[in-house]
């Protein structure tokens, strides 16, 4: 399964080992791990809650993975995104790509993250000292995704 949406944490080492197990064509593995910070827009964040659209979220992620596969010469890709309530220092998202050489692995990994941030239905709500609030989308994320088109 190239895509997983789950409340549970993930083990990066175990996921990388599983993705490249026994595949001697692989010369490069790139990974990205998104982590909860304790600060956003100048305010302390004590908790983050992620909502998603069951069904569409998985479908959107699978489509993004399919796009990455068609654009770069990668052997495999994995996306894990957590939902539910998380705390600062918790892992949120993992993207892994495997390829013969680093260039394709790096690019596909970055593309997956950029597209995920603007095209997969997840919404963050954060708890600050002033109460809880929905996180607004950033223009810088849209700009990052546009670089690839």
């Amino acid at each position, binding site marked *: 399964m190239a895509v997983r949406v789950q409340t549970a944490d993930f083990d990066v080492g175990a996921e990388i080992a599983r993705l490249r197990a026994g595949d001697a064509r692989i010369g490069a593995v790139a990974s990205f791990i*998104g982590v909860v910070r304790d600060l956003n827009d100048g305010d302390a964040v004590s908790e983050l809650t*992620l*909502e*998603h*659209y069951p*069904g*569409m979220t998985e*479908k*959107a992620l699978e489509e993004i993975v399919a796009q990455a596969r068609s654009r770069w010469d990668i052997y495999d890709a994995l996306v894990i*995104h957590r939902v539910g309530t998380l705390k600062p220092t918790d892992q*949120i*998202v993992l993207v892994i790509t495997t390829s013969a050489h680093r260039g394709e692995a790096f690019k596909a990994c970055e593309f997956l*993250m950029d597209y*995920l*941030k*603007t*095209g*997969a*239905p*997840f*919404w*963050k*709500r954060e708890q600050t000292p002033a109460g809880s609030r*929905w*996180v*607004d*989308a950033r223009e810088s*994320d849209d700009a990052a995704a546009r670089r690839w088109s």
Partner: protein
Amino acid sequence: MKPGETQAAVVRILYFARLREALDRSEEELVLPEGVGDVGSLLTFLRERGGAWANELAPGKAVRAAVNQDMSDAQATIKGGDEIAFFPPVTGG
């Protein structure tokens, strides 16, 4: 069904995140009113409920839509049996 009778076109509408809270609704079933055949006209119809509906779905507000779990724009056609979702711009990752 008798001749001349048409079956009501029912759609399922889902609301997420800020919209779900502001509209106090996560989903509903709606018989498509006459003349409502795309996402844009459905939004116009929902706005006419007034109050939070008029505010949250006002033109210029950042509202995204999906039809049958595909991101869609205002021109996307809708028909009975479709699953339509409205939500704010996404903030995952």
